[in-house]
């Protein structure tokens, strides 16, 4: 699956969540708080909920455990 937002899933900050910047998104319009998107880099991907997008573009995400598949993304989105 294609990555919506580049996130090094090794990162975390004071929030405890991985972080990146909005301009690391393929399409920034999909990076909306509460929305589930595909994040990651290289071989490490995750479905993640966008937690927040700050005025300076800083983005936090909450990765969901488990594999990244279209079916899981659809199912998870329906539960949000």
């Amino acid at each position, binding site marked *: 699956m294609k990555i919506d937002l580049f996130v*090094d899933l090794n990162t975390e*900050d004071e*929030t405890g969540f991985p972080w*990146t*910047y909005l301009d690391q998104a393929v399409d920034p319009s999909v990076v909306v708080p509460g929305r589930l998107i595909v994040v990651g*880099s290289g*071989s490490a991907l995750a479905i993640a909920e966008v937690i927040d997008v700050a*005025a300076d573009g800083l983005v936090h995400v909450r990765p969901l*455990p*488990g594999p990244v598949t279209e079916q899981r993304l659809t199912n998870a989105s329906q539960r949000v």
Partner: protein
Amino acid sequence: MPGEPSIDHPRIRRAAIPDDAWLVVRGVASIEPETSRRQAELFRRRFEGWGRYGLSAFYARSDDEVLDLGEDRLDAFATLFVYRLADVIDAGFEVVPTYRSPHVTITFYDDVVTGVARLLAVSHRTVANPAFGQEEE
């Protein structure tokens, strides 16, 4: 978080990395050169006033703690890279206790491509992550 004032460096814990914490753990995809370079640049952009590049990692004191990190923090990674803390420091990096324990930031000052290449050259071992790909119960 929205509205958070900009700061020049990440929060550095008062407590140093424990003397018996001899391992530094990163997920394998994060040590891929392009990911490391890109993330190191994002770190410098976020903390421009600190004047250095940074990469997230976690310290561990045993193989069991490495596996716990794989389950708790790094479950998106099929493989974990485990460095000896001393080897990372000997290679010219500073390992700073940042944010919440056991998170650390591996920092360097030189050119980002050079710094990432130096880190990738540090001796390490790989550990398969049993928690990779598991869904939450």
